């Protein structure tokens, strides 16, 4: 599969995850979000940016439980809970946010 962004073709796998992490930029994120029927807001970007920092530091996409806990620590308990994150990413914050972020599917995610 492939994605067309600003005239550039970007390779994705059969589930729509980026093949090359380095292809990612905010325009690509917006296009990936469109594929997930998600309209990006500041709240979405906050989670996306957080995930990217997490990946840079630990080289993995975290499990949802771990992501939720880490977000709570950094952004406060009103954001570090399942309801808030599932409202933003209805099909799973792990899977959808990682996809929009250009990260691999979280380890252990089905």
């Amino acid at each position, binding site marked *: 599969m492939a994605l067309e962004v600003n005239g550039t073709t970007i390779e994705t796998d059969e589930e729509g995850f980026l093949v090359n992490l380095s292809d990612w930029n905010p325009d690509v994120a917006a296009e990936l979000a469109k594929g997930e029927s998600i309209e990006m807001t500041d709240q979405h970007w906050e989670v996306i940016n957080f995930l990217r920092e997490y990946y840079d*530091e*630990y*080289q*993995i996409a*975290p*499990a949802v*439980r*771990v992501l939720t*806990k*880490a977000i709570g620590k950094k952004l406060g308990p009103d954001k570090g809970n399942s309801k808030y994150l599932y409202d933003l990413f209805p099909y799973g914050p792990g899977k959808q946010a990682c996809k929009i972020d250009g990260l691999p599917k979280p*380890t*252990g995610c089905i």
Partner: protein
Amino acid sequence: MSDDMDFEEGGAVKKFMFVNRKAPYGTIYALEGLEVVLISAAFDQDVSLAFLDDGVFQLVKGQKTDGVEMKNFSPTYRALEGYDIEKLYVERESLEARGLSEEDLLVDVQVMSAAEMGDMMAQQDVVISF
């Protein structure tokens, strides 16, 4: 009776130890082992990791993998704490044989003798070796 109670509490918690004996690169064992550990964290079990023999190299600071063209996954060991996996045991003899000490490692660990490690293994319900 106790089985019923365990069931109501969401199942018995078992002690799992993942034993890492191989160098981080050159084979896929270390990376695959680490992925299994991360997945196991989802099951709320009592998980520990042991590092012996060349497995101690997995935890050494400052790994540079450009030359072997593999991803440096060593930062992921620092994510284990967030997964509530905090029991990391390293065998003292293996460290010493390789001229390493606790200060060379990128995470907090408990260093123990081979004999203590043996006792620790004997206490486990499940020991899985990589």
